[in-house]
């Protein structure tokens, strides 16, 4: 192979710089900045709580999401029952509901003054009302994460279950194992690495969340980072907390990577024929349909239904149109840039040069950094750049770099580069070097190869990448809270601010618009994944 041009390597290192830069900046400032009083105070008071909440919230979410996702994935991969084809992609939809939106709906529904308890109390059944669980605190937050994030486990589990060679289980059956023994002794151990990968994603998202835990009164480390910056105004303290937070996130990330490496051994080669589905009839089929309906109700219909009711009965919030414009603009710009970055990084990986691969892999690390960490890092980087420019300029450099949309988009890119790299890499993986060579021997030059071979084959993947980043940015809250330019609120920020003021009626509309804007993208992405899996 001839040495590849400079393009891929440049893109790869650019992606790595964008993604890894903020994290390195956070680490640097955490180590070098002078220790402030706030942090010492924090150590003595709140840090234990933050860490404890982070642990409880995350483990609750992992246990529940693991159960729901594995169950749903197995049912869709192995059983046939009414509505299976719709459930197959509808089960992924709660991913379009940001955890904080679900939290608003669930807390409002279950709190003492909510529509469930109020009638009981009015009827004098106070004791019964007290027994009803309220979605609040670390356990409540874990529940909310479970019902909104289980699709990560579901999607990966479903694929793992359907990729298992059916003869593997048939072999176990012929050796005398019962269905149950086959499931627990053969099937589950084989898909365990895949499940662990899904669970790690659940953990990473739970750790990174700000809105839901803030609203449900279970402040985790992420809340601590945002408060350190927004409340105490200390970049150094925010950075130090961010380092602790990043450690947690990387733990989950390492779990995911390791699981995926092992998942490769778990997959069976040879005939990839689809296993025959077990057809359910009668009561069993109804139970199966209900079991698939329940997660969709809990993650999507119930919280959104409550918010829809609130939005229609309470006066509308102000500034929603501006928020929508801001959100759409930020999400679109970031999506396009991230797709380009992802494509470039994917080409860097494809080039096979050590540098290209390393830098693109480094770029993927950004995903493990919670939004709050990426934001603090961007803050540090841009402040440093501003200081540098000021000193070069010999005065105040005209462009105020911090707290501009640029810094925010940079933080988004840092956080979501990996989201864009993965689909681009998958798409590009089907464009083997052999295809390039075949085209060359048939007289095609570089431009024609790019236009007629590469582009049609990767277009789908790049589109998915852009869509997924778009969805993520629409939902993003903590980084936006820290970096948003003055007077530029996104829908997520507007919703959060109203919810923080206990004005849920006003928070409802922007929340619903976020979900509405992301659901079409989610359906497209989920369906293309479903198609890819069934091919």
């Amino acid at each position, binding site marked *: 192979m001839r040495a590849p041009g400079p393009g891929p390597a440049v893109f790869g290192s650019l992606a790595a710089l964008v993604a890894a830069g903020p994290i390195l900046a956070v680490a640097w400032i955490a180590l070098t900045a002078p220790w402030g009083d706030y942090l010492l105070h924090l150590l003595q008071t709140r840090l234990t709580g933050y860490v404890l909440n982070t642990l409880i919230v995350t483990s609750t979410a992992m246990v529940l999401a693991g159960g729901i996702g594995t169950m749903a994935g197995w049912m869709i991969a192995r059983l046939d029952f009414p509505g299976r084809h719709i459930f197959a992609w509808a089960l992924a939809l709660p991913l379009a509901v940001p955890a904080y939106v679900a939290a608003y709906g669930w807390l409002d529904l279950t709190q003492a003054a909510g529509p469930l308890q109020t009638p009981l109390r009015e009827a004098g059944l106070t004791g019964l009302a007290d027994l009803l669980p309220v979605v609040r605190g670390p356990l409540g937050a874990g529940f909310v994460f479970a019902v909104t994030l289980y699709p990560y486990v579901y999607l990966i589990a479903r694929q793992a279950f359907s990729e298992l060679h059916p003869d593997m289980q048939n072999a176990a059956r012929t050796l005398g194992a019962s269905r149950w023994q086959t499931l627990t002794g053969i099937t589950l151990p084989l898909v365990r690495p895949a499940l662990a990968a899904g669970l790690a994603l659940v953990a990473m998202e739970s750790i990174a969340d700000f809105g839901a835990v803030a609203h449900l009164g279970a402040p985790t480390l992420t809340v601590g980072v945002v408060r350190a910056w927004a409340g105490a105004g200390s970049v150094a303290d925010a950075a130090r907390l961010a380092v602790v937070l990043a450690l947690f996130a990387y733990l989950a990330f390492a779990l995911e990577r390791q699981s995926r490496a092992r998942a490769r051994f778990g997959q069976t080669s040879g005939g990839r024929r689809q296993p025959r589905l077990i057809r359910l009839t009668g009561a069993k089929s109804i139970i199966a349909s209900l079991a698939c309906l329940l997660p969709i109700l809990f993650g999507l219909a119930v919280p959104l239904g409550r918010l829809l009711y609130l939005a229609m009965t309470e006066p509308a919030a102000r500034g929603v149109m501006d928020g929508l414009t801001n959100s759409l603009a930020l999400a679109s710009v970031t999506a396009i840039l991230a797709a380009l970055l992802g494509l470039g990084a994917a080409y860097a990986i494809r080039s096979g040069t050590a540098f290209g691969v390393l830098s693109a892999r480094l770029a993927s690390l950004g995903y493990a950094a919670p939004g709050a960490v990426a934001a603090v890092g961007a803050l540090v980087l841009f402040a440093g750049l501003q200081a540098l420019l000021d000193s070069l300029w010999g005065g105040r450099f005209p462009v105020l770099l911090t707290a501009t949309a640029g810094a925010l988009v940079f933080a988004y890119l840092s956080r979501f580069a990996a989201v864009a790299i993965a689909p681009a890499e998958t798409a590009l993986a089907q464009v083997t070097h052999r295809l390039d060579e*075949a085209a060359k021997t048939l007289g095609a030059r570089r431009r024609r190869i790019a236009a007629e071979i590469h582009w049609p084959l990767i277009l789908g993947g790049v589109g998915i990448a852009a869509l997924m980043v778009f969805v993520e940015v629409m939902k993003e809250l903590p980084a936006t809270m820290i970096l948003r330019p003055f007077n530029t609120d996104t829908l997520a920020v507007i919703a959060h601010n109203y919810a923080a003021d206990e004005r849920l009626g006003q928070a409802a509309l922007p929340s619903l618009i976020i979900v509405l804007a992301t659901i079409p993208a989610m359906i497209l992405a989920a369906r293309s994944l479903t198609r890819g899996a069934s091919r």
Partner: protein
Amino acid sequence: MSQPVLSVRGAEKSLGGNPILKGVDLDLYCGQVCAVLGPSGAGKSTLLRSIAGLEALEAGSIISGGQSWDDGKHSTPAEQRRVGVVFQDYALFPHLTVEKNIAFGLKGSLAKDAARERVAELIGQAEISALAQSYPHELSGGEQQRVALARALAPRPDIILLDEPFSSLDRRLRADLREQTMKVIREAGAAALIVTHDADEAFETADKLLLMEDGRIIQSGSPADVYCHPVSISSARLLGDINVVTGTVDRARIATLFGEIAIPDMQDGSSVNLLVRPEALRESETGAEFTVEDIRIRQGRQRLRATASDGGRWIAELPLAHPIKKGETLRLALDETAISLLTD
């Protein structure tokens, strides 16, 4: 013979620091099918890729039609050489139909109507008319191979290269497809180079055989010539099993367990190797005694592994008319006209 359509001289190439081609010479002629046979790792594919323009040589030259394609410094890119290549995994474009795959190489060189006609002609020739609108993943292995061949032949290249073109097909299909492929290639009149590690395949396809080992061509010639007159033990082994008898010439004879064999024109005392193909042995009352260790039936004949009275291990191939059992003793004689002689 006329001018070669392609000449490779002293081709050298290393990959990742390992020398792969160590001075390869090769000539291809129009209408001639040439097979390069060698074990994996011999450098066959690298040679093919260098001719196609997918690898650049480090030393040596490739000349085609009076033009230098590679002189060790400057290498003409693949897209300007227009050599037809059938890749081992076929490398069909997954997003294009069979028809569009075949038409890919015609763009720019043929007008639209002419291109359509040419594609239809190739599709007819390859007997895949029903598949014209199918996508590669909908085709069987054999069908994919035919599409790959049609695609490579479409621009009417002077040279067509095939990299293990039948290796991923099952055996029965392989024989049929091999026949059809060779017919198509001969009709096209191009110079063809087939790279393979399968001796049977090389014999069935080639007008000229090149044996390659460790980055060098160790022997070339007509298949029969190469088979009957190997220049070394290793080149003999590439073409199939062989028994080797080593001995010293004494009064123009050499002693073997089959008795003395005349070796004319050799100095006494010189050491020689007699190469005996398994089929040069036959059952005979007067032959040497062997104990049968193992029997395999292959293509209607039986192949024996047997131990001679001196402990030497032999391979013999006999007709199946009289089945032999394991452990049986039998007497084998040598067809002296079918052995070849190698001096050190």
